[in-house]
């Protein structure tokens, strides 16, 4: 049967067909849908872990116990999981372990665009890169087989354009023998207990493994040499291969599925066949450097193509043909018309009714330094709030606020005081340890936990505070204030996220009090929990057109001017009835719909 699947759906299908027993992940764009789809297969145990390090360790444990295992994360998630990954490369596995790293050239929804292929070289593990959904499905199985044959974790790297592209896939089935029960954990202490004495024995095996893989790289069936024109040869992997096929239909292409370690044989063959040889890859010259080290002469790669952002066929056609490469598709090689300039931007915004809106309205008013974190609320950095002044990585905001509070003496100046904001899912991910540090080493930083009861930005995934698991089972719900107190924070205040006066007075009190304090703002995600009230409306008689309500930064509000009169209008279709804008109005002009009708 043929179906049209995204890369992520295909990876999930591939894992199911290849007999994966356990999958673990933390949500993160563009990887999230892998586990969401795997959870639809009841014969695979799938879970969200609190963070990527835990997910990897859960997967590694299952692999030590002999199960085929998949762990998935976005590129920056691998940073979190890197500690166990580096040593798992020494131990190897019993059952196959595939790590999906979903990278984001172009960083559509990420804080950086790091090239995670370096992790494969860093850990000295094989790296596979699919170029469409069919290959994504097939390479999951290959990765697991390679993992078992070479006794190593295997990284399968996607990019946004692979994970979120749909293409046609031939479906297979799951052999029943995949589900034969595992009844014991294999014991092999020197292999799995990385004391220095044992680890030193493993390291040479890792080096020998890479050498063996490199010598066989072109025989494993992942790399394909397509000989066409002698004028131009291109080496490419992943979705770049597809772009290359469009940009230079007649070029000879070495399509790499195994990009670490890269083999010499096919590259040498292509080099001898063509006049000009290019390497086309996004971000870093990862393949190009390996080829150069193997002594392959490259005519163009990193000096011809950008090192930032993502490519499409047009960009490749233009850059390479400007460098003298023959045979570009004529339409693609033409410079595209320039975009219309001066249009208003349309950035994403906090949803109407979002429980973060009131908090950022208050933070914006008090003008404190806000040490931010990763989530929907990072939009608090944008106008009209401009109430986030740093954001680095998951869970980083609390530790950074502590560091700032330790070196700055603000006196009475509110503006120089530090507030950390962090969402509930991010807090469970990596906010506990830095908060423990605040409690232990005592600073005056105020921590706001934005508790909306979901992992909102990635589309509403379960976490330890939702009372349910990925597979839909009920589970105890973490007592958030109790957890914060247990870490050693004495002052914990819970406030209604929609009550601006309460949020402001609580925050002012905390800012004036020495020592650590945590404010938990409560308001469930309106998208995930489908929360809404009757829309508000503007009493035009009362509206002074002062624009104060626009500080709520809500897309349901529009400032209108008609001749002499000006006013704010509320789009009833978009308004969620949360009432934050009404609390900002000094004239009582924003009222519930029902009241004006009465």
């Amino acid at each position, binding site marked *: 049967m043929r179906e*049209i699947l995204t890369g992520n759906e295909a990876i999930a299908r591939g894992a199911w067909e290849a007999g994966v027993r356990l999958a673990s992940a933390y949500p993160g764009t*563009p990887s999230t849908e892998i586990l969401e789809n795997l959870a639809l297969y009841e014969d695979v145990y799938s879970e969200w872990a609190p963070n990527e390090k835990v997910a990897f360790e859960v997967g590694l444990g299952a692999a030590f116990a002999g199960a085929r295992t998949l762990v998935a994360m976005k590129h920056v998630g691998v940073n979190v999981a890197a500690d166990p990954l580096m040593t798992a490369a020494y131990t190897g596995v019993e059952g196959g372990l595939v790590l999906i790293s979903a990278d984001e050239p172009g960083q559509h*929804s990420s804080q950086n665009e790091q090239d995670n292929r370096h992790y494969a070289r860093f850990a000295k593990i094989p790296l596979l890169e699919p170029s469409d959904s069919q290959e994504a499905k097939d390479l999951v199985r290959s990765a697991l087989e390679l993992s078992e044959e070479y006794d190593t974790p295997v990284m399968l790297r996607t990019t946004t354009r692979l994970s979120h592209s749909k293409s046609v896939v031939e479906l297979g089935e799951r052999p029943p023998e995949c589900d034969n029960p595992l009844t014991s954990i294999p014991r092999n202490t020197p292999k799995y207990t990385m004391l220095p004495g044992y680890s030193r024995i493993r390291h040479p095996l890792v080096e020998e493994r890479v050498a063996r893989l490199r010598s066989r790289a072109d025989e494993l069936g992942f790399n394909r040499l397509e000989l066409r024109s002698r004028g131009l040869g291109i080496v490419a992997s992943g979705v770049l291969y597809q772009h290359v096929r469009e940009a230079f239909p007649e070029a000879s292409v070495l399509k790499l599925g195994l990009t670490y370690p890269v083999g010499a044989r096919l590259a040498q063959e292509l080099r001898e066949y063509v006049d000009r040889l290019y390497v086309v890859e996004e971000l870093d010259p990862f393949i190009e450097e390996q080829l150069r080290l193997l002594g392959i002469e490259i005519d163009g790669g990193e000096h011809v193509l950008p090192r930032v952002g993502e490519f499409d066929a047009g960009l490749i056609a233009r850059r390479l043909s400007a460098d003298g490469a023959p045979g570009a598709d004529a339409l693609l090689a033409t410079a595209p018309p320039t975009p219309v300039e001066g249009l*208003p931007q*349309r950035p994403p915004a906090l949803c109407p009714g979002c429980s973060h809106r009131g908090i950022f309205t208050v933070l914006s008013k008090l003008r404190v330094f806000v040490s931010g974190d990763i989530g*929907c609320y990072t939009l608090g950095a944008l106008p009209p709030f401009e109430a986030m002044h740093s954001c680095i990585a998951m869970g980083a905001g609390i530790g950074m606020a502590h560091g700032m509070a330790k070196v700055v003496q603000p006196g009475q100046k509110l503006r120089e005081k530090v507030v950390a904001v962090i969402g509930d899912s991010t807090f469970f991910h990596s906010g506990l340890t830095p908060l423990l540090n605040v409690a232990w080493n005592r600073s005056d930083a105020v921590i706001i936990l934005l508790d909306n009861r979901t992992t909102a930005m990635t*589309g509403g995934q379960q976490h330890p505070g939702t009372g349910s698991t990925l597979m839909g089972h009920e589970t105890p719900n973490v007592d958030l204030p109790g957890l914060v107190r247990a870490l050693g924070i004495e002052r914990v205040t819970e406030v209604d996220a929609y009550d601006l006066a309460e949020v402001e007075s609580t925050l002012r009190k905390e800012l004036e009090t020495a020592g650590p304090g945590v404010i938990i703002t409560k308001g469930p995600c309106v998208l995930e929990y489908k929360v809404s009230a009757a829309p508000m409306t503007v009493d035009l008689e009362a509206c002074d057109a002062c624009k104060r309500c626009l500080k709520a930064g809500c897309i349901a509000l529009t400032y209108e001017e008609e001749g002499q009169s000006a006013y704010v209008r509320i789009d009833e279709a978009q308004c969620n009835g949360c009432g934050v804008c009404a609390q900002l109005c000094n004239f009582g002009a924003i009222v519930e719909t029902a009241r004006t009708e009465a």
Partner: protein
Amino acid sequence: MTEKMQETATKTTNLLVAGVGGQGVITATHLLSQVALAEGYDVKQNDVVGMSQRGGSVVSHLRFGQEVASPLVSAGAADLLLSFEMLEALRYMHWLRPGGLLIYNLLRINPSTVAAGFAEYPGDVRERIEASWERTLPVDGNALAQQAGNPKTANVVLLGAVSVHLTFSEEAWLSVIEENVPPKTVEANHRAFALGRQAGKA
């Protein structure tokens, strides 16, 4: 005007669908790809998803043909741009190839920057679209959806207008719509599609 945007059966056809987060751009593109698949084409679709907040600019790429390689439509290479909103039509117009067709919904949605008073929505947006592109087809998707009896069918109205310019059979369209919309809304959606087809022939 009803010259098909698919020139030959072997050439890959490039479509770009643009709109605002929450409008259903990705769902509409998915319907398009289902129809293409049902008609026996190789299909690739790409959407950037992952920021769940509402109100951002959204664009979806769809390519179909005998054998499709890249999932992305390069700027300047789209045969057809369907925009669910007027400002987004202007924003993505340069994606069209020379002679490409722009079908746009006569709908204005204020970006957050405009709502907050930091920027102005161009008052002459429709005139600018018409002045800067030769082949355009404005459709009042939301009014026709009302006429079809369900305001939520605006996307299917627009797909109806698009369908006139592609070679897919009407049967394939109708059955894909039927399979993908809530059962209670099938009739309204079929009416919306028919109204869109009329508008597309204008």
